[in-house]
């Protein structure tokens, strides 16, 4: 399908020449030809290979480590344990100026807190020797009692996993959000629903396992190639922990094979690799296996959500109360941020004046939960939207109409505290209903066969940028070259979303030059201006705006420089298709190359623009329609089609935006129906750390997706009104599917993933109920 034709352009009176067009992505030629360099592709002369020894116990003190046999193995160059690495307490999610980080980890500790935590590392002349050395390290553990569930971790007197001064394994003090008068609201209600929702543990499963290469030069400077979403965070934390200034750490990320949020953290191997390289004086590569990528990676927060809402007969929500409890696993990572964002999200989406919310995040001896696309909101909006579907039925409303009635709108206060701009959510719901002929489709026949079909709608909203949790900053430099071409130097990291193409489009648009004349320099902390990293659906919104500001700066300089040549005032000039044109009546023009290039033996004029942007927040919206088929004999749920409708302000690159939406739906179908990273609740051991046992939807499972993008609520904070799109799709698809399953078989599941086993058990229970 041509996504182009599906853009509803409603914003602005300007004619766009580059923005809004699916130009050829500037980074894809090297990608499709296999020449793009990823951190794992780096090979340096004399390079050593490092491996990590991981614990085979979930909670223990290390009584002793004997590395003598490993060190004696030929080819082993260094072994690190907690006894010979710097002991510096640091946070896994090192966002600056953010209150919501938890310093709770060491590079290597004398204690392990989850099964698979790194306890030692070896550098050797080959991967094979490093692996053999790892097996020769002998560790004696003193087991500590493990807590693997929220219930156990919250029990009074439960073993403490961290000594952070908070009771009952809390990662942070409970997050409380209150608006209006909840008790009064419930007193006014005609219907009160109170439910508990149980959320599994999906994991990002990016295709590129974590990997880094470290090289120290003769002047004591570290260069690290690593697969990260936040190169400057890696630089800052490495400098802090290694005790070197920032200008002695250079982090390079040319291309990376996906992160989906999780690669915002610093992982143990990044420190260990740098230390091993420093100790041996040789470059060192450290690469996770796929199994290690599960063990040492970051999942979405599993958890429980207790939700209670009051409704009037007329369909208004009178009160909302919730207790959100997230399982952080062994370390805090993004727990504070996820808890804040996920909990505060429940103030919104569906309007309610009286709200009382509590969010908690709890340590357990489980794999670390971190940032993952949707950041706490996947969980809380799953609960909220499912309850809305249920309330609609109980009150006699059509579920889509009921959600439309209650949808947030222009001027309502968003979770961030900002007023919402426009009617994006209502527009999405209406369009989804029109596009799928909702009312007629629902009326259709429902054959009572073995395979039963149902439809559902799910809604979401999500902020671009992490404000107010973090005050963000994006920076860009735009250089005019003397032949009229343009170089954009951006701190914005590329996860593979096409961000650099979008930024180039914005620069081309702002400058009035063809897209092909803009090239991008990125991914090297020694060269590019500081950037907070690629996350929070903010890359276009934040980095794009900074690039736009830098381009506008250069444009101003070009016009001032050219004005005397065209005997006009700068205000009378504009740039179109690479020509500086006078609009003051004379119609004179001059090519950019001529305007800025060398003149009569004089060097070219140097024009450099700088843009810095510190945004607040905007919200994007979506409504997803899903049709499912449930096989009542096998319990399998097949998603037959999805119609996602997204409102994102302004589309910069339609195909890339649609690609974000369709990929998010794939991951969302995954966590709703099959993906769950499971641990043995008796000992904390990972049970499915492989692509065979961790079930993701693949080519045969994915339905056709008819993507619709609206531009009805542009945000003045983004470039040309653009807002984020990266996280939205994964939030809306879950409730759409769960609601469609109810429509098909009449069972309301209140958890994910909804597995075939769950479906069969529920159908069996339902049948025995009917018989009694």
């Amino acid at each position, binding site marked *: 399908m041509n996504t182009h034709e599906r853009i509803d352009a409603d914003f602005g009176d300007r004619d766009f020449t580059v923005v809004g067009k699916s130009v050829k992505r500037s980074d894809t030629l090297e990608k*499709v*030809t296999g020449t793009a360099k990823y951190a794992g592709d780096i*090979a340096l002369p004399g390079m050593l290979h490092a491996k990590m020894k991981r614990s085979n116990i979930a909670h223990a003190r290390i009584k002793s480590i004997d590395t003598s046999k490993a060190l004696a193995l030929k080819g082993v160059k260094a072994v690190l344990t907690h006894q010979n690495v710097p002991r510096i307490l640091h946070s896994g999610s090192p966002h600056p100026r953010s209150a919501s980080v938890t310093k709770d980890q060491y590079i290597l500790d004398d204690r392990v807190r989850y099964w698979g935590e790194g306890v030692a590392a070896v550098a050797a002349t080959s991967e094979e020797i490093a692996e053999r050395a790892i097996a020769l390290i002998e560790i004696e553990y003193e087991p500590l009692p493990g807590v693997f569930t929220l219930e156990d971790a919250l029990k009074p007197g439960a073993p403490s996993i961290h000594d952070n001064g908070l009771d009952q394994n809390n990662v942070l003090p409970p997050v409380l959000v209150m608006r209006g008068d909840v008790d009064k609201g419930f007193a006014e209600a005609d219907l009160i629903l109170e439910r508990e929702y149980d959320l599994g543990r999906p994991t990002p499963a990016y295709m590129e396992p974590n990997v880094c290469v470290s090289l120290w030069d003769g002047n004591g400077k570290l260069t690290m190639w690593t697969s990260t979403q936040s190169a400057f965070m890696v630089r800052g934390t490495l400098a802090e922990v290694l005790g070197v200034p920032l200008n002695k750490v250079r982090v390079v990320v040319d291309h990376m094979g*996906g992160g989906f949020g999780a690669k915002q953290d610093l992982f143990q191997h990044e420190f260990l690799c740098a230390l091993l390289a420093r100790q041996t004086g040789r470059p060192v590569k450290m690469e996770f296996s796929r199994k290690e990528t599960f063990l040492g990676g970051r999942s979405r927060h599993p958890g429980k959500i207790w939700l209670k809402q009051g409704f009037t007969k007329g369909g208004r929500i009178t009160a909302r109360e919730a207790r959100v409890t997230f399982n952080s696993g062994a370390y805090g990572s993004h727990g504070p941020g996820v808890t804040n964002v996920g909990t505060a999200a429940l103030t919104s989406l569906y309007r309610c004046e009286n709200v009382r919310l509590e969010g908690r995040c709890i340590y357990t001896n489980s794999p670390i939960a971190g940032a993952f696309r949707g950041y706490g909101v996947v969980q809380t909006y799953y609960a909220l939207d499912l309850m809305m579907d249920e309330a609609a039925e109980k009150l006699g409303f059509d579920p889509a109409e009921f959600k439309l009635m209650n949808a947030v709108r222009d001027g309502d206060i968003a979770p961030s505290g900002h007023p919402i701009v426009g009617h994006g959510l209502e527009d999405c719901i209406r369009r989804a209903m029109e596009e799928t002929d909702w009312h007629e489709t629902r009326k259709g026949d429902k054959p009572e066969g073995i395979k039963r079909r149902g439809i559902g709608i799910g809604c979401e909203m999500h902020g671009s940028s992490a404000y107010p949790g973090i005050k963000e900053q994006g920076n860009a430099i735009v250089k005019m070259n003397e032949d009229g071409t343009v170089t954009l130097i951006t701190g914005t990291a590329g996860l593979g*979303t096409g961000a650099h193409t979008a930024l180039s489009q914005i620069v081309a648009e702002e400058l009035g030059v063809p897209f092909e004349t803009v090239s991008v320099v990125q991914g090297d902390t020694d060269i590019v201006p500081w950037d907070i990293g690629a996350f929070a659906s903010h890359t276009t919104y934040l980095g794009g705006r900074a690039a736009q500001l830098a381009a506008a700066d250069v444009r101003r300089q070009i016009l001032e420089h050219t004005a005397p040549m065209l005997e006009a005032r700068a205000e009378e000039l504009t740039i179109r298709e690479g020509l500086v044109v006078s609009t003051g009546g004379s119609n004179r023009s001059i090519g950019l190359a001529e305007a800025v290039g060398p003149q009569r033996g004089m060097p070219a004029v140097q024009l450099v623009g700088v843009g810095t942007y510190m945004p607040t927040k905007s919200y994007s919206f979506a409504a997803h329609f899903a049709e499912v088929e449930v096989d009542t004999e096998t319990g399998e749920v097949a998603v037959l089609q999805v119609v996602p409708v997204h409102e994102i302000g302004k589309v910069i690159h339609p195909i890339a935006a649609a*690609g974000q939406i369709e990929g998010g*739906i*794939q991951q969302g179908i995954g966590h709703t129906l099959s993906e769950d990273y499971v641990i043995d609740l008796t000992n904390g051991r990972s049970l499915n750390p492989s692509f065979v046992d961790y079930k993701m939807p*693949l080519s045969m499972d994915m339905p056709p997706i008819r993507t619709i993008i609206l531009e009805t609520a542009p945000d003045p904070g983004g470039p040309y009104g653009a807002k984020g799109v990266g996280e939205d799709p994964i939030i809306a698809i879950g409730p759409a599917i769960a609601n469609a399953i109810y429509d098909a078989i009449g069972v309301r599941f209140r958890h994910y993933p909804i597995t075939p086993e769950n479906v069969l058990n529920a159908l069996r229970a339902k049948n025995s109920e009917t018989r009694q």
Partner: protein
Amino acid sequence: MNRLVSMTINGEVRELAVTPNLTLLDALRSEGGLTGTKKGCDVGDCGACTIVMDGKPVNACLVLGIEAEGANIETIEGLQLAYDRPHPLQQKFMEFGGSQCDFCTPGIIMMSKALLDENPDPSEEEIRFALAGNICRCTGYTKIIDAVRATAEELRKAKTL
């Protein structure tokens, strides 16, 4: 103990020094300098290392380097006709947005090439079936399938001209 193994890689006869337990994937990446073929799992689950060996698509991580003696190997690097002339599959993957983070793309393009060599007019179902062993985590497969279908069409058109 290293052994020299001779094979034709992208039309060029090359000798790679491999230990008996080195996979063809590692041999190509480290000894052959061909890093376009990616390692996503190293156990045959993800398809990122798909190459074409003697006309058949294989996971290079499941073949030993020494097994490739005398074989004809095609990798992503050999597909491009010239530095500025991508193969039609590469062209269509760029046009249709079939590649995002790209880590799976070389494997998916090689698998698609093997499919189109055998079946120049695959249905959507046949494309999905052919790619069943290739994990992509970014795209939802929609744009990959569009790209493969568009390539098939273009190649068929080129043939009838």
